[in-house]
């Protein structure tokens, strides 16, 4: 449960984000139904973008209708939280059931005390369905109650785009469903929202109005079910919404709630990470999992997850590498259909990625740094900083690592799921086209090595550098996996290979070139120091201790200025460390250790994506104290109440990173197509952690305590597992346990 007691109006925007109900198709912020001074209600529908269509504008996720708007009057006087005494006010997000509750006791100027309870959900059982219920109870009076529930376009705000109501039709009769039609101004997308309301204790007197006399001790209840449809799924969203409401949605609100609860139960069974010993960690992880599940729609492969998911309009709903590198691993091991769907979104944007590569002078596919509807790059070219500087944004032009990131995610999903059909039909093409990109992006130098010049890695403080270690390392990997994918296709899916080879112009010579470039691409590795240089010349830059600037509330590029930071070794976020974290087995332990000790003190964590990777990396090193510090920092990104970070939506990448810090870091889970590996390093604050994993169709339940590691198979097939590098084959329904004398001792397999 996530509980917000009372009112803190200035925090309303972040509370609305945190308390969003979402099902991957539609998300509704946790705004108060009556609306208060700082309310920012928004219902966001996945894939529904608009564009102001002026030079320099980019598509942005448009705010849909406010379907929760409710107002109350008792004997003609309004009941509103800003005009009276709020004796109690509590918002409760039931993470387990995906239900947002609100309990409100209000005393008006006449001394009348009313108790109002609200329930809201975005159905996970039927993603087009939204539901809210209101129960009104007078505590110390009897009087006339009037309730209005309206379907209205989102209120106009200067920092977002709203869907607009289409020309009004005659209001439907009270007995018919309400209908609101909206459309984007400059995009060919239309949305229809229809509602049906059932009342107990009140009479409907107008399409959106209910009245009645209500006595002390009695209650009136209104249940409203709302159905959303868009022109993305149906050419006639109005008819689709009305039909769905009439044919597929139960009349009984309790049935809707029950089906929704069951859907969440199933997802939690597949996903929950249970922590004993630290309530804050437990709450943060479940908060993360709740929003990860709510952000995604496994049955729609034409949408992905924006940086703030469906919880707010900040970042315009744009899709970054956050999705593939931070969000997707959770789904690879808990809900493969969702991971597949996210990757299919990228597959469907291959035409735009090819076009971007061509426009940039390269071959293959260069995915958009910021992607919206069709994969065309939606990165704004300029930014105006609050100190009046115009910042030229080059990430859209230079952060080419996104192509390798997508390829890595496709391969990772394939390894985790064993979904050969996906890989043959889509994943391999992603690998091949991104490998083709890296081939054209690499230049052979006088030193006989290949180089990638004028590039930007995850460390966005340094633009236009040569041989960024992350980019080159991922490109090497991508080229090699391109060769592997080609060989696999040729061997297993000859027809598909022939078709792709013909269409993409792939020959044996192409594959040999990929292999050559992969082998000869500069790495920046110095065997004498065991360090990867982040880019050529990095270690010649001024060395600055990031810790000297603590404490602070802003990133160092803001504090010191971009020009100054450009000349220093200050790193925005995990870059070399991100590479090693992703390709862990490619780097021996001394290299992992040396690079962490070098780059961690130089890292500013100017991105919310950085602390979770440092947590996971440090945990894998066994540096649990450092890992714990970064884990806690990550947990506070959205949930701390004194930073305002979450006002425009939760940081879905950091939430995915938090799950990785726990499962890939503290539990030390790694996987390949061959086995599942564990290397636990539990923080002292946790007495145990327990979580399920789904690997290649086999369900496992992992339990870790300071001196015990246990894996239980709940599937028929055998599972190869390694702990501390020692392999074990887990049979159907079997449990394997390892024990150790203390936290520093080696693990030993327990013998029965």
């Amino acid at each position, binding site marked *: 449960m996530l509980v917000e007691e009372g009112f803190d109006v200035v925090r309303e*925007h972040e509370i609305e984000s945190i308390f969003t109900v979402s099902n991957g198709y539609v998300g509704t912020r946790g705004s108060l139904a009556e609306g208060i001074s700082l309310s920012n209600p928004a219902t966001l529908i996945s894939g529904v973008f608009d564009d102001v269509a002026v030079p320099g504008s980019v598509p942005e996720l448009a705010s849909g209708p406010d379907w929760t708007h409710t107002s109350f009057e008792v004997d003609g006087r309004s009941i509103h939280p800003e005009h009276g005494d709020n004796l109690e006010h509590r918002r409760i997000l039931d993470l387990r059931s995906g239900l947002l509750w609100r309990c409100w006791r209000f005393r008006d100027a006449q001394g009348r005390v009313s108790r109002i309870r609200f329930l809201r959900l975005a159905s996970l059982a039927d993603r087009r369905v939204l539901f809210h219920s209101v129960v009104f109870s007078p505590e110390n009076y009897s009087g006339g109650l009037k309730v209005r529930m309206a379907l209205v376009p989102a209120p106009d705000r200067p920092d977002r785009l709203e869907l607009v109501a289409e020309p009004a039709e005659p209001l439907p009769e009270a007995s018919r469903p309400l209908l609101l039609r909206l459309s984007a101004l400059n995009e060919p997308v239309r949305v229809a929202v229809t509602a049906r309301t059932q009342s107990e204790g009140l009479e409907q007197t107008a399409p959106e109005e209910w009245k009645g006399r209500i006595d002390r001790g009695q209650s009136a209840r209104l249940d409203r079910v709302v159905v959303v449809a868009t022109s993305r799924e149906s050419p006639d969203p109005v008819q689709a919404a009305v039909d769905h409401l009439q044919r597929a949605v139960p009349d009984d609100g309790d049935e809707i709630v029950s089906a929704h609860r069951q859907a969440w139960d199933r997802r939690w069974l597949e996903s929950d990470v249970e922590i004993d010993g630290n309530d804050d960690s437990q709450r943060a992880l479940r908060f993360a999992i709740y929003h990860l599940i709510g952000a995604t729609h496994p049955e729609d492969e034409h949408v992905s997850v924006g940086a703030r998911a469906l919880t707010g309009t900040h970042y315009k709903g744009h899709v970054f590498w956050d999705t593939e590198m931070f969000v997707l691993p959770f789904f690879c091991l808990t809900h493969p259909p969702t991971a597949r769907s996210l990757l299919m979104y990228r597959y469907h944007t291959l035409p735009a990625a090819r076009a971007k590569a061509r426009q940039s002078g390269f071959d293959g596919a260069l995915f958009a740094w910021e992607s919206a509807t069709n994969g065309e790059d939606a990165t704004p070219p300029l930014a105006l900083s609050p100190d009046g500087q115009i910042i030229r944004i080059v990430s859209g032009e230079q952060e080419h690592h996104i192509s390798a990131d997508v390829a890595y995610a496709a391969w990772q999903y394939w390894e985790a799921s064993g979904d050969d059909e996906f890989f043959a039909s889509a994943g391999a093409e992603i690998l091949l086209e991104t490998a083709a990109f890296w081939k054209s992006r690499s230049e052979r130098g006088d030193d006989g090595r290949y180089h990638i010049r004028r590039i930007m890695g995850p460390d966005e403080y340094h633009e236009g550098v040569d041989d960024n270690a992350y980019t080159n390392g991922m490109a090497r990997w991508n080229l090699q996996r391109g060769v592997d994918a080609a060989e696999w296709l040729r061997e297993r899916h000859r027809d598909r290979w022939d078709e792709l080879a013909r269409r993409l112009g792939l020959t044996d010579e192409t594959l040999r070139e990929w292999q050559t470039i992969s082998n000869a691409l500069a790495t920046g590795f110095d065997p004498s120091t065991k360090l990867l240089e982040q880019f050529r010349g990095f270690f010649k830059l001024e060395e600055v201790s990031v810790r000297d600037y603590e404490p602070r509330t802003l990133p160092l590029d803001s504090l010191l200025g971009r020009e100054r930071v450009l000349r220093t070794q200050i790193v925005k976020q995990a870059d070399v460390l991100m590479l090693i974290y992703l390709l862990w087995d490619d780097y021996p332990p001394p290299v992992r250790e040396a690079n962490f000790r070098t780059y961690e003190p130089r890292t500013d964590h100017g991105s919310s994506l950085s602390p979770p990777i440092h947590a996971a990396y440090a945990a894998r090193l066994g540096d649990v104290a450092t890992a714990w510090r970064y884990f806690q920092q990550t947990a506070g990104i959205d949930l701390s*109440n004194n930073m305002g970070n979450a006002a425009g939506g939760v940081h879905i990448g950091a939430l995915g990173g938090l799950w990785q810090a726990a499962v890939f870091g503290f539990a030390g889970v790694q996987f390949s197509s061959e086995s599942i590996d564990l290397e636990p390093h539990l923080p002292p604050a946790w007495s145990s952690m327990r979580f399920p994993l789904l690997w290649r169709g086999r369900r496992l339940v992992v339990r870790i305590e300071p001196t015990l590691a246990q894996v239980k198979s709940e599937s028929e097939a055998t599972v190869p597992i390694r702990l501390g590098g020692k392999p074990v084959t887990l049979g159907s329904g079997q449990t394997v346990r390892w024990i150790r004398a203390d936290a520093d001792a080696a693990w030993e397999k327990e013998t029965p």
Partner: protein
Amino acid sequence: MNEAKWPSHVLVPLDGTAPSASVFPVAEQLARISRAPLHVLRVFTRHGPPDVSDQLGLTPEQVQGTIVEKAEGDAADGILAVAAGLKDVLIVMAMHGAVRPAGGMGSVAVKVVRSAACPVLIAHPGPHLWHWQFRRLLLPLNGSPDSASCICPAIRLMQLAGASASIVHVSAAARPAKAPGTLTTPRYVDQPQHEWPNWISEFLDRARYLCGIPKHVKLKFRMAKGDPAAEILRVAREEQSDLLVTSWKKVFELGRAATLKSIIRDAPCPVLILPIVS
């Protein structure tokens, strides 16, 4: 939204010297803008004459229409006593007398600022105030709800005067504030092209609510980095601000309120000091 209310009295203490009298046009204009009675106060160390009108350092035309007050004893105590009697009042006074102290404020001003429970406007005395006009207001906001909430009176004055407002937020190396609802510059700027406009929007939304600034009032936003006092003063000069508003927690001891003291010392315009009421 918080309510914006401006004091219903304006009190200007004078000691008969030209420096103290030079702030009179400021007090007069503020009283006129807000339609508040203007009280002119002369404090004597001993019994003063029955009629003090000719001992204020003002012309008869200036005195006309004011309410002349008289007090005896310590100057600061006298000012504070009269202000306490008026209850809902703004004190307008010169920072110092004929000699400018190193810290900018004379001992009377220091005592009044430190002890007054009401808003105090202080200004460096001089002829530059004779033609003072209130057109541009500068609001430095540090992102904490407390300091923003007490700005409301200045917003009311701005509306009454039809003045414009600029907000400046100075980012500095500092420990994150613990108060819930505090919004400082974002610790994480994942992508500046998105983060900055979103953050400004959020900062202004909260500022409007806390300071009582209506939606239709246009605000100019400036962010600065570095020493808060130096940056606020720089922006005040660049914006040609006529009034700089600052809030503080009434702790003026050695080593505290360094920003406030620096602003007062070097302000290019009158400074309105609003006490933070917890």
